[in-house]
């Protein structure tokens, strides 16, 4: 009996030592060992993963991600798994990720992707809920899948603090002017971002008013002709790049555009491109771009208030 129990004790000791060793080594190796390998079809999820310090093994349409989302940059080793709506399953199976993340608009993919790896849906754009709340929840959900809960808390807290800081830096005069955030589709049509859009959520955090109060679609924008912007007299236009090719030239000769109130006051702001349907990283970049443009703008526009205003 005794030798046996002795042996048991040694075993227990060894196990304990091993556990200790793992615990000690934990902080150094956990990021490699504990992080599941994730593949995703959704750029917003990819963006959030990268912001959490996790490199996904596969992302859909990597070239288009680099062009339209851009930051955080996607490392070269990330595999392109094909179209967002039809990720290449043979390739996915070969990559054998630990988990596949999709968004609700690709929910038809779930049953077949489930056969490759556990597939989870992270919903950011869902009607009827506050976008910022959803964004925080989605970020935490994504973080939970990759064991980065604390990192998510830090990320969100720093984003909140950053936005608060930016808000305090804006003058009351700036905040008093409602903004109209648009993206040009062609020389005659724009997307106006309103309720339930990422841009709108960021503007709320910055204490800025959105001039576009009309109903918006699932993704928080309205598709309108340029004439729809004319009635909003005191709104300041914010154009988010990229401009489609040739539009700038055509706007030069567009009488209506030249006569828009914001254009005549010469206080139209132009922002560098930011993924319009993005998550926390896009929100931060949009906030930075917007406040920077607002800080630079008043000097040129203040003394040029419309003569009849």
């Amino acid at each position, binding site marked *: 009996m005794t030798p046996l129990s002795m042996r048991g004790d040694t075993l227990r000791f060894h196990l304990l030592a091993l556990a200790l060793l793992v615990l000690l080594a934990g902080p150094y190796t956990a990021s490699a060992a504990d992080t599941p390998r994730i593949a995703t079809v959704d750029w917003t999820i990819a963006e959030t993963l990268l912001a959490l310090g996790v490199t996904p093994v596969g992302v859909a349409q990597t070239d288009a991600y680099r062009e339209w989302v851009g930051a955080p940059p996607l490392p070269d080793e990330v595999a392109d798994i094909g179209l967002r709506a039809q990720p290449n399953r*043979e390739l996915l199976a070969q990559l054998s990720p630990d988990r596949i993340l999709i968004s*609700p608009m690709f929910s038809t993919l779930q049953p077949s992707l489930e056969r490759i790896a556990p597939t989870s849906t992270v919903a950011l754009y869902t009607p009827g809920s506050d976008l910022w709340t959803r964004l925080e929840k989605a970020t935490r959900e994504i973080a939970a899948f990759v064991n980065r809960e604390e990192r998510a808390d830090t990320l969100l807290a720093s984003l909140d603090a950053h936005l608060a800081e930016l808000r305090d830096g804006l003058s009351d005069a700036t905040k008093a002017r409602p903004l109209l955030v648009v993206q040009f589709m062609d020389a005659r049509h724009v997307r106006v971002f309103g309720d339930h859009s990422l841009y709108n959520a960021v503007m709320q955090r910055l204490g800025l008013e959105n001039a576009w109060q009309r109903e918006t679609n699932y993704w928080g924008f309205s598709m309108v002709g340029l004439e729809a912007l004319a009635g909003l007299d005191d709104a300041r236009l914010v154009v988010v790049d990229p401009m489609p090719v040739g539009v700038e030239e055509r706007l030069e000769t*567009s009488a*209506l555009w030249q006569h828009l109130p914001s254009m005549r006051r010469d206080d139209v702001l132009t922002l560098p491109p930011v993924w319009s349907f993005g998550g926390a990283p896009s929100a931060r970049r949009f906030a930075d771009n917007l406040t920077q443009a607002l800080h630079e703008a008043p000097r040129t526009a203040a003394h040029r208030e419309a003569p009849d205003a």
Partner: protein
Amino acid sequence: MRDWISRSLPFPHVVMTPARLCVLLALACLALSGYSLATQLPAAQWAQALFVPDERNIDQVLTHYSWLPRWTISLLAGGALGIAGVLMQQVLRNPLAAPTTLGVATGAQLALLLATLFAPGLLVLGREWVAVAGGGLAMGLVFALAWRRGLAPMVVVLAGLVVNLYLGAVSTTLILFHQEELRGLMVWGAGSLSQNSWDGVLYLLPRLLIALALAALMLRPLAILELDDVNARSLGVSLRHLRLLSLGLAVFITACVVSVVGIIGFIGLAAPAIVRLLGARTLPQRLLWAPLLGALLLTTTDQLLQHVSGALPTMIPTGATTAALGAPLLLWLIPRLKLGGDRPQTAPMLAAPRRRHPMRLQLALGLALLVALAASLLLGQDGQGWALPSWSVWQATHEWRLPRTLAAAGAGTLLALAGTLIQRVTGNPMASPEVVGISGGTAIGLIGVVMFVPGVGLPMLLIAGTLSALATLGVLLLINRRSGFQPERVLLTGIAITALFDPLRSIVLANGDPRTQQLLAWMSGSTYYVDTVLAVAVAASAVILTLAMQSLSRWLDLLPMGNSSARALGVNVDRARLALLGVVALLTAAATLVVGPLSFVGLLAPHMARLLGASRARAHLLAAALLGALLMVLADWLGRQWLFPQEIPAGLMSSLLGGAYFMWTLRRL
């Protein structure tokens, strides 16, 4: 005809004429426009806003630079399309010829897509010119294909249809892979009349005046085209040059309109057709009333739309709406439309010498199909490049490759059978499953479900698709019951139903909903969403139906001989047609649910079978079925490998491959 329309209006004793209809519409249009302008600006300021707008009064600015140019351009565009439609219908002697059926609009769209992606500098030089060049090239292609046949009307329409499908497939492929870059063009493609300066009007007006003057000069020679080819030729008219000139003029007009406001559906088809129905028989009459009616139709629609869509978050482009509104009108008109018999038929069925031993052809096709199936199952790429066939690769991939290959083969067969049936029943080489509208109808139902029920699963999609296919079939039967399922009418109904699908698609695309990616993928005919059970079911039913179809071969041999001959040989013509149409509908619905509405194979496979010499119904059916399967399997495999890891949907791929082949053979005919 005229009585029908008059009787359905509130004043049954007044005979409706083009003039009266135009006056009625003009009154409605003026009332609507006046009301809309009054809500925009007090009447006292109208004159000022028109001539010297106060630049600081935003309402006057809006009226002067947006409302008025839009109103003017809708009149101009509608009128222009009316003229283009009259010219084309006259030249092609086909009441269904329209600016959009010659590939002009799709050609212009493709040119703009390509320029946006690969040569943006051209757009700065002028979008109009890119569009005109694209439309012109597309038309040039159509003419080149029909040249050997002296631009015979039937061949031109057929070539136009094929070019349309082909360019459409190329555009869809580009949109699928470059959705973000091309989103602006989606708006344009749906035909928005929104204006923000007078530039568009100033561009369109002089061009239209020149075109109108040319059309007036050509009145007399054009009227000769009413005669059949032999008579016209005996009067010393060079038919080829005359057709070329007048079609060229119509295309120029269309391209101008398309480049300024995008694709405006239906007006070019409807306006000439309606004035003709109302009794405008001679060419000068039609050239007078069709543009007027077209202008009024477009402007009235646009005015109504501005009232309705003001409060909606989605934009509803006018071009797509005229198409959507026009489709029911067309459906209503079809039972009342006089077709054929009016003027002499000229084009014979396309045919090739009959083959002595169809068995050899079938064997060769069967062998080719086996090779294609093996390639599709065993050969493929992975992350490291091409993988040699091996047991481990097969284990890893059969789960994904087998259902897709089976489904492609099955769907291809079903479509080929449906195409063979419909081409033989109607004696019309233009006919194909998508033309009878079942594909379009199914697609409408599926789009509705995807757009309005978020996060819907595959079973629900299947049910919705089946229901809408059946509903479409119901509409088809209901409308054609009275005419005894006359082939032309059935085709016409199908085109009208399909015309209802296109605008829906355009509206969805124009609003840039990111969900469109999935829709696009499905609409382009992808085998991606097929699971094993469905694939086996489709493949099995394809085999069974191919064999069962052999029993219909007597009908299929006799019906193309014409009603009286078939009846004399003891066929109950109406019942046979009804039965065959039912079979076509079911075949198409099944295939559409699997690979989407883009069923180019249904047009292609029966054709190729015929060109390869399978002319008797039995041989034709079998050869077409084998060809259909072969085409689809090849298309599916190539689509999966070409741009790996991105996938080109099988439907698109088959259009790209098959369309090229088809155009080549058409040229040789």
